[in-house]
């Protein structure tokens, strides 16, 4: 193996490591740290009752 091939191999290794770093960082950025339980807990709540239905029911006979 001559000196030029040695330098090319070193360059290829560096490029591989850079690509590895890029994909690792990209993967780490995409992963969420929230648990399933937390995601279930924050499902939005609609805090309104249909009062018209209650009024209509009050008007009905037993």
């Amino acid at each position: 193996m001559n000196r030029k091939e040695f330098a090319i191999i070193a360059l290829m290794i560096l490029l591989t490591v850079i690509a590895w770093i890029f994909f690792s960082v990209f993967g780490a950025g995409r992963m969420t740290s929230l648990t399933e339980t937390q995601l279930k807990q924050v499902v939005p709540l609609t805090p309104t009752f249909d009062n018209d239905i209650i009024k209509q029911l009050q008007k009905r006979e037993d």
Partner: protein
Amino acid sequence: MQLLNFNRSLFTQAYKKLPQITKNKKTVSYFTISLSLFTLSFFGFFAIRPTIITAVKLIKSVSDLKKIDLEYENKISGIIRAQTEFEQIRDSLPLVDLAIPGNALFHKLALVIENFAQVSELSINQLQIDNVPISKQSPSGKLQKYSFSLIGIGNYQAMSSFVQHLINWKRIITINSLELTREGGTDNKNLRIALKATAYYEP
């Protein structure tokens, strides 16, 4: 001791060869570049990569926690508003149970229909209720229904009054079909009513 001597001789030989290598400038350049690239690769993989990953994970974690904190606050305010609204309609909640009871209550359905017919002066010839489970069902949160049909005889006012009572009953009933036919000859004022309807319950 022998190992130490061997290492020493190896270093001595390498040190002696070094001036020969450094004489050629091109070789020195290639050696420097290769060594720099290897060093960068080594530190990139074992030092820079874990550091950047940790930093990104921490930033992402902080952002997620800020987001979930906001969503928790929204949920808490939603629960407080729901509590306030619930307090306002607390007294009316039995109405909901009357509208959609917890079990089929088919006997009550039959009793009320009989009562409405009596009030409306309609005579019921036949009342048929579909199969319904008698035993108490485990809560499913799903709306269940069963059909019933009745055949009655009476004049038009009685029919109208009966249907009106049925529609205005607190328990929710859906009338699927209503059929009025003249009973007997053309001079007979009595009508025959055939009604098919659906009642609901939610175990």
